[in-house]
């Protein structure tokens, strides 16, 4: 992987620390004992399905909610009780929360007006930010509700930057935007992160989005942070079935540890060769990503092989996925479009993988 930010490598004090942060709604823990340290200048993304508590978490970080227990430290200072308007942090909302009765300029200048800066200075700063975010200068006097989706996105970000926060929070700001524009804005956001050098904390339910932008990713489930790591770590070394399935299409095989150190498939009893660095456990799941599965000429061509029938194929742009029925189960094999598989539907096929391409998870 490329080395992204020199300051990620220094072991200076974290800009934001969460110590056993919990939030109870009645008897239910929406956020359950979370510990993270966020490094200055980092792009940190919290990803999880809806209801996993990520919005509650970010609202506590922004000061719109108070944790039931635990501490939130900003550069070592406890800020649990500091209200949102006193925190040097700012949030871009899912709804964007623009002020519909104001112009683009007035929206961007809002935090400066609140701070009592004089109008001339305010305008200079607003135009600066509009240039940074590629908004034409003529938009300064335009009503914000007349802007397109992508433009509003940029106004919201400019307004947050005008506050000059030490940390910027993002609450799924791209989720309502259509696919093509979202892809463009994801890349723009990463560029802005690079240009401003601020700490970004982003939440989303889309791991695809998280992978594209983040330096580190934290995966949330049922209020708990189940894994934290770089996109590469999350993708190649998921620590649970949940994380592996969240990242993309995977083949999950329930297995039990056999006496000879091998794995036994729970349904067919067939024995499999485990990956080299396998954790100790009695039963769990073997995860094999579709791009590591191959079509074989004969069963001896790979460490592990299974026989089945070709059931379906799906085109995915540069890749093609094949579904193979093995007994009751369906396996997914992914090939590049340049090297497609030439079988016919319902043909008998052999699929296999090298032992070290499998990932063993105990859950």
């Amino acid at each position, binding site marked *: 992987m490329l080395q992204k930010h020199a300051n990620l490598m220094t072991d200076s004090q974290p800009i934001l620390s969460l110590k056993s942060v919990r939030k109870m709604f009645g008897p239910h823990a929406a956020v359950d004992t979370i510990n993270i340290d966020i490094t200055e200048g980092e792009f940190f993304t919290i990803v999880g399905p809806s209801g996993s508590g990520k919005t509650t978490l970010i609202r506590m970080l922004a000061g*719109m909610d108070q944790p039931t227990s635990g501490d939130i430290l900003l550069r070592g200072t406890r800020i649990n009780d500091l209200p949102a*308007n006193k925190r040097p942090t700012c*949030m871009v909302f899912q709804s964007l*929360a623009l*002020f*519909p009765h104001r112009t683009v300029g007035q929206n961007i200048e809002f935090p400066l007006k609140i701070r009592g800066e004089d109008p001339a200075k305010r305008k200079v700063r607003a135009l600066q930010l509009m240039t940074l975010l590629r908004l034409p200068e003529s938009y300064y006097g335009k009503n914000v509700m007349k802007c397109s989706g992508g433009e509003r996105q940029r106004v919201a970000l400019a307004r947050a930057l005008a506050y000059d926060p030490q940390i910027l929070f993002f609450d799924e700001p791209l989720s309502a935007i259509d696919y093509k524009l979202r892809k463009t804005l994801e890349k723009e956001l990463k560029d802005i992160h690079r240009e401003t050098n601020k700490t970004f904390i982003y939440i989303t339910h889309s791991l695809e989005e998280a992978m594209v932008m983040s330096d580190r990713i934290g995966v949330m489930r049922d209020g708990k942070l189940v894994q934290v790591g770089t996109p590469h770590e999350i993708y190649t070394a998921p620590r649970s079935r949940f994380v592996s399935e969240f990242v993309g299409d995977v083949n999950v095989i329930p297995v039990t540890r056999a006496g000879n150190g091998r794995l036994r498939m729970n349904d067919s009893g067939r024995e499999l060769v485990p990956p080299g660095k396998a954790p100790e456990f009695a039963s769990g799941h073997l995860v094999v990503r579709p791009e590591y599965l191959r079509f074989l000429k004969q069963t001896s061509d790979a460490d592990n092989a299974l026989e089945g029938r070709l059931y379906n194929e799906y085109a995915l742009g540069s890749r093609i996925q094949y579904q193979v029925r093995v007994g009751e189960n369906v396996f997914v094999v992914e090939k590049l479009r340049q090297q497609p598989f030439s079988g016919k539907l319902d043909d008998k096929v052999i699929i296999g993988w090298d032992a070290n391409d499998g990932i063993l998870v105990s859950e």
Partner: protein
Amino acid sequence: MSPGFRNALPVMLFLLAGFAAPLIAVTWFSFMPPRTFAFTGTPTLENYETIFQSTSYISFLWSLALAALTVVLLALIAYPVAYGLVRVFGKWSMLATLLFTIPLFVSENIRLYGWVLFLIKNGVMLGTLKTYFGIQAESILFTLPAIVLGMVYVYLPFMLFPMTLGISMVPQDTRDAATDLGASRWQVFREVELPLSLPGIMIGCLLTFVLAVGAIAEAKVLGGQQIIPITHDIEIAFTYSQNWPLGAALSVLLMLVVGALVVLVLRRFDLDVLLGRR
């Protein structure tokens, strides 16, 4: 001719006939000679001259002043209540709204008689004070405050509902964002909450003003003829004095005054601008 128009035409004609008929009749009659009951007389401005030479303008002023006072009091009372209903009371809002709604199911006159019974000397309030506390107080019944109380009481829901709607249309996110950008509670209110809920407030004010100008029962029942609003003058012209053309002319003038005021206010506070649509 679009199909929409073709289908709408009969309904609009029916509306013009049904709804405009009485208004046209009133306007036409206002130009008939005084004290006639036929619509075939020679048109004359005599009724309007009579009005301008009479003291009717006092009734007009009373009606407008009473309505204005009612609207101001209603705005002051209803805003905090509406704010509470939307933002503070949570699940108790339903119950509170129900309490506001139930009295509307009882005829207005019955509720006003109820106030008479409550306020009158030896009535529920003063009677209790006298019998159990030995306090002797003057009744406000048949005075200006009683009329204003009655108007505020009767029209509160009509101010409260549009206001509640207006306040509930201000998104929570927008308020959170303003706070997050450093605004204090008061700044959030002044910069975001008030301008965004203004359409609801304006509609409430207009609605209650129009209703209050046309009010008659409150002055009659609670005011005991102390104050004669213009609607009362009109009723008298149509009933006791049997001078229909005069009543019609008074009605036309009232409609003109109210109409002019409504148009003026609506132009001043362009709703589209307030809503940020342009």
